[in-house]
């Protein structure tokens, strides 16, 4: 499914191009190399990485309904970008990205700390607290941005979309993809983690190390996506939930499926966003948000008793 979608993605956009155009017309080739291929790759990388990061976050938080983008990590990334822009206005992208990655790490660590004391018997409390936490950081970002007269600047990072993706401006997403791939390498450890802290330590797992590695992977993914495209919510929520329902949580097997499904979801909605109101575009985050909110509610109502 990803293959045909990717091919489709190459042909859809404000400027129509045919296969012949890509092959023979220098302008068409230019468009393909500078815009269409990067955009397609960006959607695939971001989708895969976001879905996997959601899956990891759900293990670390021991709850199916948290998702980094809405639970503080995404907002912390925006905070990082804002701080970078205010303190070092002229710095290069890599400085912005590093600061964003660090604030995201701090933000996700904070989330785990406030979630820890919550009783496992009240699983719905976790997403609730996570959303409030995300909302708080969001409010803080908005407040600071307002004071500094940078609301518009921050706004561009709040809604993720791919229309601005060009060669040379999306490559950070390879880092996000790399982080997701690294999670697959430590998939067994992460699955052992999901047995619970005690059982995991009983099996000789260094739970602190694995938690740390997972947090770093989640933070890198979230920060890179926000810096490059903006926040894209819900991918990390709905994809892992659907994959878990169908094939379970043995991550060695599940992560590749999660990554693939996430890529299909983001690429698919991006194509849809390009087609629906062409020549205008609907941001990916808006479409995924609509879809995600519906699926989220469905999931909540479908299995309240086994929500944890």
């Amino acid at each position, binding site marked *: 499914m990803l293959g045909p979608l990717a091919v489709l993605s190459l042909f859809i956009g404000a400027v129509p191009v045919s296969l012949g155009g890509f092959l023979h017309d220098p302008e068409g080739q230019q468009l393909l190399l500078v815009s269409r291929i990067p955009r397609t790759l960006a959607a695939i990388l971001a989708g895969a990485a976001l879905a996997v990061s959601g899956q990891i976050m759900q293990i670390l938080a*021991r709850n199916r309904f948290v998702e980094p983008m809405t639970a503080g990590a995404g907002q912390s990334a925006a905070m990082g970008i804002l701080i970078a822009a205010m303190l070092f206005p002229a710095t290069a992208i890599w400085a912005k990205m590093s600061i964003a990655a660090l604030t995201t790490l701090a933000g996700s660590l904070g989330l785990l700390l406030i979630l820890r004391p919550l009783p496992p018997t009240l699983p719905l409390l976790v997403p609730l607290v996570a959303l409030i936490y995300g909302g708080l950081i969001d409010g803080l970002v908005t407040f600071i941005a307002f004071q500094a007269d940078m609301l518009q600047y921050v706004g561009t990072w709040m809604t993720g979309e791919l229309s601005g993706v060009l060669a040379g401006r999306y490559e950070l997403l390879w880092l996000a993809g790399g982080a997701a791939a690294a999670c697959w390498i430590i998939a067994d450890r992460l699955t052992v983690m999901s047995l619970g802290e005690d059982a995991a330590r009983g099996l000789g797992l260094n739970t602190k190390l694995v938690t740390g590695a997972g947090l770093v992977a989640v933070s890198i993914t979230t920060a890179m996506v926000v810096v490059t495209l903006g926040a894209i919510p819900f991918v990390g929520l709905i994809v892992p939930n659907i994959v878990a329902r169908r094939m379970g949580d043995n991550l060695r097997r599940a992560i590749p499926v999660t990554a693939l499904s996430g890529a299909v979801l983001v690429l698919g909605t991006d194509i849809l966003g390009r087609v629906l109101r062409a020549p205008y575009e609907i941001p990916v985050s808006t479409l995924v948000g609509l879809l995600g909110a519906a699926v989220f509610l469905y999931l909540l109502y479908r299995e309240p008793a086994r929500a944890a």
Partner: protein
Amino acid sequence: MIRVDQVSHQIGGAPILHDISLEIPKGGITALIGPNGAGKSTLLSLMARLQVLRQGEIHIDDMQIGKVSDRVLARHLAIMAQSTHVSARLRVEELVAFGRYPWHRGRPGPEDHALVEAAIARFGLGPMRARFLDEISGGQRQRAFVAMAFAQDTDYLLLDEPLNNLDIAGARSLMRLLRQMADEDGKTVVIVLHDINYAARFADRIVALHEGRVAAQGPAAEVVTDALLRDVFGTDAEVSVIDGQPVVLV
């Protein structure tokens, strides 16, 4: 041998265990009994380094808890905690297979697969091996967790109330399996039981805890008495001896 030397423990300033010294010999089944809140789970989790030991020493053979690494200990001692709440959706066979994790750390070999198969067969999990943990009964899940601890293939097996959720047939068959593991495989089983009759019937030794202290220890015939029920459990239930074995008449 598990040696507990002058172990005391507090949680949030409240004293939980007072100066416990105890020797659990190698081999056989030792049952930990005592009323709710006596400190059985706390003592077991200290032995399994799941809580930090602050006062006193615990040795498992020549390994000292707190000094030996989690990785090494995981090959000598398996623990099944009281609440086995697992949020992950795993299949029965996947769960049992993770018992081998301390040995292969992610790359299972033929021997690991063989031991997992043996555990699945021994605990009668074959018919439900491909089912998810949230799609089987509480008793079956409990058995899957014990099977996982068994697959870990350690000399010591620590189990906290594994009979929870089990009906009488399930409870007896699990205790028989543990008996077999002790008798035929030479495992040392330490098990928290809340039903004194199961302890008296299946364990070689009983250790009774009361308010964080060892109230009595020894073979069932010596430990399970009217006095124990009165002083430790605070009930006037009586003990009768049937076939040379103490039985609490509830």
